[in-house]
């Protein structure tokens, strides 16, 4: 996955201002930044939900805009905060939609397998989305993204709407699946703690530009510059205050 001077403008507003970056296969990359930093826009360039107004985005060496859209989107699993389960489809039909669009029928066995993969009961395949909890729904969302055996998983604030416990569990699960299935994963989040805990590599964006590109270890060691350190300081500060409170109580 390579971005070459990738750029996106909306009129005079620059959302992404020329990003150069290569992501090697098998890595788990977190894209962090405050709201409006352009991280979601950059992510959506990968599966052409947003097309670049300048530069190129390469997937396996090919420009994504020249690939057949339906095929590209099968090879790229997409999970996002809105989840977007189709309310008139059953859970099973939701999971099977990607292959169905490609003219394949997903076996019920495979659907059960995918549900098990995201730690849901296989019997849930027959339920309607509005019968599920938020966490269960996002698990179905992940199963749907994995149904087409994608090489790349892109996630846009995937756990943003979930409660902290569900969020933590699902984060761990996704990291586990990443390792197990040998995926390449790019996750957009505004939560630096989540990024540091899950990713191999953290990219920091600000005002449409890439301002830092480091491993979690390097960031915690103080590298990456002012903006990145500002973001790292928040969870670190919280952790220290919690530790201090614990110390006082002890």
């Amino acid at each position, binding site marked *: 996955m390579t971005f070459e001077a990738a750029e996106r403008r909306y009129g005079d507003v620059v959302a992404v201002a020329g990003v150069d970056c290569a992501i090697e296969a098998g890595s788990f990359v977190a894209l962090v930044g405050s709201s409006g930093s352009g991280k979601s826009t950059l992510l959506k360039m990968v599966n052409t*939900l947003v097309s670049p107004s300048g530069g190129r985005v390469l997937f396996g060496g090919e420009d994504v805009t020249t690939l057949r859209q*339906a095929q590209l*989107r099968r090879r790229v699993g997409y999970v*996002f905060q809105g989840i*977007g389960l*189709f309310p*008139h489809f059953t859970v099973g039909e939701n999971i099977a939609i990607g292959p169905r669009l490609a003219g394949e029928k997903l076996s019920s066995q495979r659907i059960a397998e995918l549900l098990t993969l995201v730690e849901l009961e296989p019997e849930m395949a027959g339920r309607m989305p509005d019968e599920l909890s938020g966490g269960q729904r996002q698990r179905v969302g992940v199963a*749907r993204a994995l149904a087409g055996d994608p090489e790349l998983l892109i996630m846009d604030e995937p756990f943003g709407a979930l409660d902290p416990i569900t969020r933590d569990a699902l984060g761990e699960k996704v990291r586990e699946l990443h390792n197990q299935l040998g995926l390449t994963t790019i996750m957009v989040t505004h939560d630096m703690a989540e990024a540091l805990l899950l990713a191999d590599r953290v990219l920091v964006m600000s005002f449409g530009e890439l301002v830092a590109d480091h491993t979690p270890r390097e960031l915690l060691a103080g590298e990456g510059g002012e903006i990145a350190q500002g973001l790292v300081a928040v969870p670190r500060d919280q952790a220290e205050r919690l530790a201090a409170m614990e110390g006082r109580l002890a």
Partner: protein
Amino acid sequence: MSEIWTILLGLGDKLAAHVVLAASAIGLGILVALPLAVWASRSQAVARVALGFASLVQTIPALALLALFFPILLSLRAVFGEDLPTLGFLPALLALALYALLPILRNAVTAQANLDPGVLEAADGVGMTGWQKLTLVEAPLAAPFIMAGIRTASVWTIGAATLSTTIGQPSLGDPIFAGLQTQNWALVLAGCIASAGLALIVDALLGLVERGFASRKRWLWGTGLAAVALGVVGALAYQSGGDDEDTIVIASKQFSEQYILAQLIGSQLEAAGYSVEYRDGLGSAVVHSAVASSSIDISVDYTGTIWTNELDRTDNPGREAMYETIVEWERETTGVRVLGRLGFENAYAFAMRADRAAQLGVTSLEDLVPVGPQLTVGGDPEFFERPEWVSVRDAYGMRFGETRNFSPTFMYNALRSGEADVISAYTSDGRIAADRLVVLHDPREALPSYDAMLMMSPRIAGDEDIANALRPLIGAISVEDMREANFAVDREGEGKLSPADAAAQLAGKIGL
């Protein structure tokens, strides 16, 4: 109650026509609105223009919209040829479909605008093409809302379709208009009950479909749709079965005299073995075009009306010459055959109370000239603007002390109470006989004649059997007989007759 019931049972053909018309209009509305809604959901500008146009159409009264299609289609004949119908089914269909557009369009656009953006993003995210997104996601999710719009449109259309009577399309409006004119409330009620009942049934069935879509229960919407389809197919079958080439269609305009004469003509033809159909309550302006295009077969029209409206003449060559000219003109230009005159006139005339006329010694318009300046004249709201008044004023040098306008009913009351000394009456009006009024002679023939003529459409113009069956009516109806029949239908209370009964009485009186 039993009277209403009897009328309702006889409304089968009107109901079938009503169902076919309303269903076609809603169908056409859906066919136009849905693609437009899809387009509108992709473009703000289209949404604004389409919804603006549909709302504008909605502000035009349904009656005016129906009437407007007559000149529009007439001008379109330049493109599509003379066979393009300007009356009846086509204009009714177009007007009602336009009317059905707004609720369907608005609901469809709103439904699409309110779809969960997450779901739409997911549709793109899983790789749906625009068409797949529309058919797999947008359409099924918007369906219940669109169905609600179609329901609203259906109820409106079924109601508004009653107005298509005025442009010569049979519908459940026929009994309503006929009943309103002849003050036959059973007829009005029967028409209202039938059309409201139809609207309620359709609303309930489409409600079933809407609920079926919302709860994704196939059997529910399937049942609803099947029932609606069955009703439409049934109506079509009924109509095609009843549509007989040999049936003679008799038209009437919207006043009692016309209803009575239509019944009289109808019974005369039925006695001769023909099957007849009545197209009651047509707008006065459309009757002539309808008979000329053979949308109807027989009408009764008046010489003065044809003279001004069709021949565009303002001169007055005298009663006989006017009639001869019209017969000739119809034969050459429209192919309509004027079989003859019925014998009476329904003209403008000046009338006075008998005692007042005797007191002043007035029997003709000439006698009125010297006393005019001391008298008050009453006319219907348009009379003093009409060529008839101009002609009388100029021919006699007529001047009145005071001029007052009344609606027709109050005009007679004013004469009775002495608020007016002389009024512009209609010569065949039943109230002339009932109030024992004196109709003043017009020795200078300043008032154009309004001889009632029997008109045959080009389709049956050459049919001598029909002509022979109708010939006994020619010259047979005196103005006194017509007045009596009109009064029997117009009056209130005891002795009030339906047009059919009045026609039967009139037939007896003239010896048929």
